[in-house]
């Protein structure tokens, strides 16, 4: 399920380059290959499962966007889950079409992002992680209390409806391609954000905040903006997920979902654009296959976490591009 380029922000090596380690493929080719895989995939695997994976890919990429300014949120499930509930409610109770429901869900996540971001960016590093986790737990308890989430039962049997008023989303291929387009739009947006001057400033803040401040940048404004963008995209992922699996439940707002998205990013490569996609695919497949094996999923996830942190902190994509980068850079520099 490789999409787009090999995506390490620094090196421009494509898929084939990744394999051989020598050939440099223009990124356009890599993107074409990725796009082709995205188009063909539903004919090779179960489209509904793939569509769900794509939602988590977008979620992980949205989470990783925050990493570009050097912040680690431990509460992204709040945005994902809040939007999942709101969009589910809009679809099921208000009977709105998916486009509108997704918009309302994303808007809800955005508002939440503004409120949480405003408070959380007052502290950095470890405190930021703890505060986002605690704020997200507030949303979890809220979801337990308010009537429209149906507490333990969750919002079940959410109708999918039609996309653009024409195509029935209950057709699994329509469903898949809708999710694929949403993912691509989100991914492209994140790509554009990280490559823009705005993205460069974020990077400057991450590398040396006092210097960015002394250059006259309002650091907190930038942090808040990227936090809100990240929350909004996580919300878009959550709303789409509700439509795809027709369910919004407490799992969506649970802290373990925040943990899962961190693992996806960490496993795939947190410093890379494409890493979270790889990580999301792997973690989702792992959970799918472990579900029937009788093995304790939570313990396996925990073990992978530990191995990732102790042995390869750059993640899969990060380690590969590092290896290739070392090979390529040595003669040149």
């Amino acid at each position: 399920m490789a999409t787009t380029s090999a995506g390490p922000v620094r090196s421009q090596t494509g898929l084939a380059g990744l394999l051989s380690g020598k050939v440099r493929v223009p990124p356009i080719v890599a993107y074409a290959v990725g796009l082709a895989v995205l188009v063909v995939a539903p004919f090779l695997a179960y489209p509904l499962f793939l569509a769900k994976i794509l939602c988590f890919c977008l979620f992980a990429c949205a989470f990783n966007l925050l990493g570009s300014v050097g912040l680690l949120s431990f509460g992204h499930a709040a945005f994902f889950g809040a939007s999942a509930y709101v969009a589910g409610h809009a679809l099921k109770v208000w009977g709105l079409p998916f486009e509108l429901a997704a918009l309302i869900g994303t808007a809800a996540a955005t508002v939440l992002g503004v409120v949480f971001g405003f408070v959380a960016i007052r502290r950095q590093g470890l405190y930021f992680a703890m505060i986002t986790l605690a704020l997200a737990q507030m949303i979890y308890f809220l979801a337990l209390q308010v009537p429209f989430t149906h507490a333990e039962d969750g919002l079940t049997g959410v109708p999918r409806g039609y996309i653009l008023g024409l195509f029935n989303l209950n057709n699994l291929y329509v469903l898949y391609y809708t999710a694929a387009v949403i993912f691509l739009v989100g991914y492209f947006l994140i790509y554009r954000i990280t490559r823009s001057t705005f993205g460069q400033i974020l990077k400057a803040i991450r590398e040396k905040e006092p210097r960015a401040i002394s250059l006259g940048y309002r650091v907190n404004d930038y942090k808040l903006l990227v936090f809100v963008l990240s929350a909004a995209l996580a919300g878009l992922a959550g709303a789409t997920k509700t439509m795809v699996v027709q369910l919004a439940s407490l799992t969506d707002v649970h802290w373990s979902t925040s943990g899962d998205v961190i693992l996806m990013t960490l496993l795939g490569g947190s410093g890379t654009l494409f890493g979270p996609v790889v990580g999301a695919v792997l973690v989702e497949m792992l959970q799918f296959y472990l579900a029937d094996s009788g093995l304790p999923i939570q313990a396996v996830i925990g073990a992978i976490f530990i191995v990732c942190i102790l042995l390869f902190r750059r993640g899969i994509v990060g380690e590969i591009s590092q290896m290739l980068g070392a090979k390529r850079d040595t003669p040149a520099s």
Partner: protein
Amino acid sequence: MSFQILSGQLLVGLINGSFYALLSLGFAVIFGLLGIINVAQGTFYMLGAFGSWMLLNYAGVGYWPALFLSPLIAAVVGMALEKTLIARVYKLDHIYGLLLTYGLMMFIQGMFVYWFATAGRPYPVPLNLRGGFDLGFLFLPKYRAWVVLASLVFCFGTWFAIEKTSLGRTLRAATENPQLTRAFGINVPALLTFGFGAGVALAGFAGVLAAPIYSVSPLMGGELVITVFAVVVVGGMGSILGSIVTGLSLGVLEGLTKVFYPPGANMVIFVIMFIVLLIKPAGLFGRER
């Protein structure tokens, strides 16, 4: 609104507050020494409770020996993990310590769910603490009075050990300037391991105290640690005494909310955290850095 309900919930709040205080204290000790946010603090609390349950059911060891043995076992497990795994991330960004202990929590909790399922297991109140005192307005079970008392004694004991003894001075020196402390011939890595063990033992102790009140379950620490996070953010990391006071008072506040507005009880600590962050981001007892 009867006075009876109010004082009953105040007692429940005081007990929860005792656990918050013990956990956030252990948390503060570990953070102060190692700069590690120990997400697994709730897991060690669970291990403490499970330890005493296992001691009772597998070895016939009662509550009073378990009160000593179980935190010790938790501390040994903690120190082994510190030596083998956690010590490897000290030189990295501190966020890796948080992620690593999160992974440990997921792993240990996952294995316990796998072995023991999620249902709670009852743990009997020790014989000599059954019954209670009738205070007229409130029936005070002996065991609950003991929990509050024991927590207070332990909290202030820890405060005393860190602030007033020579061991505490050495620990603080190792925190302030590990290089120089080493130059004085003090084995700093061993001291750090010991400090981690002490912080974990506090959580394990809280777990044993909690076992007869709440039943013993693999999931008992997972949610609690997030509430403790909020408590720590409210209190700030500045002072040991601050984390004790914050823990107790937020527990009581939670109990009061249960009386006046039950649906808000779960959330009140987080709402307080939100407000404190708006007004005083460093926390009530914290120093702005």
